[in-house]
């Protein structure tokens, strides 16, 4: 397992704690333009993801791994379609636990 460049699980609210660092999150796609995708985080905040070559077509849910640029923007390195059914509530809880009570278990 590659541990040289870890990416933190984040939701919309946690993004600000990782500005300049590598993060991963899942958004529900609400719109896309050339070179950027706009979506809703699992805690209902808007996130703009920039970067080259998002997958086409996009499914409802999209995972992105990349660098947090601001408290609502990510520069994507990896895009992954997560399909049309995804339990955002569970994912949101995972983000909270991974940065809270069980932080020590995550790199």
């Amino acid at each position, binding site marked *: 397992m590659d541990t040289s460049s870890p990416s933190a699980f984040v939701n919309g609210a946690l993004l600000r704690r990782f500005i300049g660092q590598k993060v991963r999150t899942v958004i529900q796609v609400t719109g896309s333009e050339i070179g950027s995708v706009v979506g809703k985080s699992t805690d209902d905040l808007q996130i703009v993801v920039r970067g080259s070559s998002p997958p086409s077509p996009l499914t409802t849910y999209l995972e992105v791994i990349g660098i947090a640029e601001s408290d609502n923007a990510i520069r994507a390195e990896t895009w992954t379609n997560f399909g049309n059914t995804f*339990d955002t509530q*569970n994912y949101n*809880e995972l983000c909270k*636990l991974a940065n809270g009570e069980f932080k020590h278990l995550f790199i």
Partner: protein
Amino acid sequence: MPVSLTPNAITAIHDGDVNLKPLLQVLEIKMIGRSQERSQERYRFLISDGVSAQHAMVAVQLNDRVKSGQFEKGSIVQLIDYICSDVKGRKLIVVLNMETIVQQSETIGNPTIFGETDTEAQKTFSGTGNIPPPNRVVFNEPMVQHSVNRAPPRGVNIQNQANNTPSFRPSVQPSYQPPASYRNHGPIMKNEAPARVIPIAALNPYQGRWAIKARVTAKGDIRRYNNAKGDGKVFSFDLLDYDGGEIRVTCFNALVDRFYDVTEVGKVYLISKGSLKPAQKNFNHLKNEWEIFLESTSTVELCPDEDGSIPKQQFSFRPISDIENAENNTILDVIGVVTSVNPSVPILRKNGMETHRRILNLKDESGKAVEVTLWGEFCNRDGRQLEEMVDSAFHPVLAIKAGKVSDFSGKSVGTISSTQLFINPDFPEAHKLRTWFDYGGKDTASFSISRDTMPGGVSRNEIRKNVSQIKEEGLGRSDKPDWITVKATISFIKTDSFCYTACPLMIGDKQCNKKVTRSGTNRWLCDRCNQESDECDYRYLLQVQIQDHTGLTWITAFQETGEEIMGCPAKKLYAMKYELEKEEEFAEIVRDRLFHQYMLKLKIKEESYGDEQRVKMTVVKVDKVNYTSESKYMLDLLVR
């Protein structure tokens, strides 16, 4: 005005007069011990018309009034409902209802025990070797000596009578009341006339001949069973008569064929002959301590000219707030407005059969709401109708006859086989509820006496364990099997023997499935059916090793669950391995089935094989893991 007893009343009762409503005096009250099989006490009165006295049994529904001292020695009473039946050649008066006219009085007249001079009857009685049970009424007791006081009591106001007997009606339809065609001519006394119609409340096991006229209020399906005595079938129906008496009628086997098609819910029948047995209270919720078992001599005849005097259905609705304090398994009637209906979901019953369940919510004027669980057929038939109504924003009134209270999670009401549902019924209670709901009740908040489902979509009657807990907690060692769910991965499947040869013959609507043995050339013999067949079925009997993060164990999977685990029918695998001898392909299929994770519902029970005790674990349901609900379940464990 002094009270005078009705002259010759005892004789008149003996001759079958049930409309006389005589005034009689109670000379003696005696508690007859508890009868053999029922722990119900009964009272026996000695009643007198001033000349004759006769023992009379008092119906158990009057017990409370006897205990509270409403009737005492010397009381003058008016018999309102009563019958005189013929028990083994002797006359037995049973009092169903009576009122006290004068609480206390000196003994009137000089009564002697009725029938004292009937030496013939005495002979038959004392001459037999059969000693009657102690609780049986004994007529020929020595003459009772009472102090005689002919002076009538003073200051008695007979006008009380009207107030003391608030409402009574003739309990027996006089139209069907042939006179008893026998007199005490000789030692053999047999009444050849058709049995007289009596109220259901008066039925008891000591009557030989009786008839009741009643409406069928509910009818069960034919159930098939298989026990040590062999296969059989049974069905029962419930009756209600003019006086509100109710009783269940059950019949078996050939009688099912005879009576099942005859009986129809809502129609009135004359039913005669049959034996009375104590009601099985765990299945029978009717207010009667007896149940009728029909016999080959029984008759069930339709009364085409019934006039609607027998009610269609008898309800005693309880407000939902009452259910909160009702005991588990109580059977009751409830009426309310349906506020929501959940979809029907398949449920695996403990016996491995699948059924359906649908939950709906009911509220009433008590300010409380309750969950109602519909099972089986109710889900589709009535459940769908209710769902469509609620979906179209109409909230129907639902009356539930004979629902069962469950205390599993808060309190809820479930259907049982004899439950009946009435959607938007034409009852006064229903109209009252409708008005309440439409004019405000709709918007009032009702507190639910049922608890909501557990988080994570885990069915609330599911007990989750891990593999090591099965051993640690000694599951299966108690009287009843344990039913648990484990999330586990299949790590090994035994393949040297994975199925058995099963009997393909049908027993009723089910396949026999017992193991068959080869007899002669390619014939298969079933011990149970005692028949041979050309072919046999192959059914799974699969030994599977499962494993989770705590340990591993062996479980057994039969046909349905086996097929779920193997992904194809046993017959196909058998043919592949033994007939086509494609060992490689077979091994590949088995390998492919390993290391899948499932939710496995297990039945765990310790069984003894010879001296050895072995905990047997059978998988009754195999489900793929639902990751969403499983994540929720684990999150819930974390935050707890």
